[in-house]
């Protein structure tokens, strides 16, 4: 059974809080303490981009590793959702591809628009990676 939209949203929010705690905070402590306080935007843009990129990459890894290993993240576990491949088992490249847009919330939002028009309620990158999110029975 395809996963409900609200369940997916709430599962994502739980994961987002988790990712914020374990990834964003350690990496952005540098930005928070020093960038905010004294820098001007131009001189710090390179490091800001680098840190943002790293946070995005780690976030994608969080989803990809867990979905590849157990088909679920913490949020999905709570809401009994599961990521599945439309073929056999899910490969790591499929897990990476389906989560690639999680590098940025904006990209994920655009990616998620496809759910509204998809019969199987797939995001666009889920279609590309030939994966789907389902509810566990």
């Amino acid at each position, binding site marked *: 059974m395809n996963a409900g939209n609200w369940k997916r949203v709430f599962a994502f929010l739980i994961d987002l809080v988790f990712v914020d705690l*374990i990834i964003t905070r350690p*990496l952005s402590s540098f930005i928070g303490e*020093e960038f905010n*306080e*004294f*820098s*001007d935007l131009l001189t710090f843009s390179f*490091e800001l981009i680098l840190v943002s990129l*790293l946070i995005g990459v780690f976030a994608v890894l969080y989803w990809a590793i867990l979905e590849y290993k157990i088909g679920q993240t913490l949020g999905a*576990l709570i809401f009994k959702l599961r990521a599945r491949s439309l073929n056999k088992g899910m490969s790591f490249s499929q897990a990476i591809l389906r989560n690639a847009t999680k590098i940025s919330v904006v990209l994920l939002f655009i990616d998620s628009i496809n759910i509204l028009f998809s019969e199987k309620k797939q995001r666009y990158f889920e279609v590309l990676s030939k994966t789907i999110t389902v509810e566990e029975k």
Partner: protein
Amino acid sequence: MKKLKIILTTVILLWMAAFFISLGFGDDSEIITNGIAIVPIKGIISPEDSNDFLSGSGMGSDTIINNLKKAKDNNGVKAVILEINSPGGTVVASREVANYVKDLSESKPVIAWIREMGASGAYWIASGADVIIVDEMSITGSVGVISSYLEFSGLLDKYGVKYERLVAGDLKDVGSPYKELSDGEKRLMQSKLKKIHDLFVKEVSENRNLNDQQISEIKSGFFYLGIEAKHLGLVDEFGGRDEAIIKAKELAGIEDGKIIEYKPKKTIIDVIEGFTNKAFFYMGKGMAIELPDNKFEILAM
């Protein structure tokens, strides 16, 4: 259960990776155009950083000088504020920093802002700054040298433990806690302390342009409250962070300086150490609370 284990492992690994990567950032070498750097000098000053449960935490002269160097090399930094909260430290480490501060003050305005305490070696460092700002109740001064230690020979005798003295060189074990100092040895030790003290007083006096009367006053090694220290000419102004920043802007001739703090970076070891230190402290505290008073007496016997 297995799923949770995998989630937990992944989370820990990702957190560690993020933490280690975050340590790589913060090489604040190229940042601002018009800024004021705040360099903290906190805890006991020794050659290396310390985070000892018994002797307390402190900053190493290497770390402090490294931060001062960053401020010096950064053309965007127009003035430096030393945020001092330290009881002092070892002679050489304090002097290393004091010399660097003096050198730095020749190229950029340096303001020493003493918070709770800036005494002994920490005051030596502050004296090299262009201006010293304190709170009226700050503890400062203490221009003296101390080398006291506990001597256990009486205690050892009581328990039948004998110090078997084996030395090549008669004075090799001067200062050993296991034997009493002879009068001659005491004099020798005292003469070493005097040399250090003389140098300490001389450098502080030069840095602060003190007259003979002021010098004889501070030579006692006594500490002074901010309000007394100002009267003695040991410090210049009263205030806190805001006053230090205003003074820094004034001396640097800038109106809108941004603040940059050169904090020592914490490693994962520091985090773990800090955690275990606290854990042991609370464990001991908990045990002590649980013990009834009479058991305390037994333990103390």
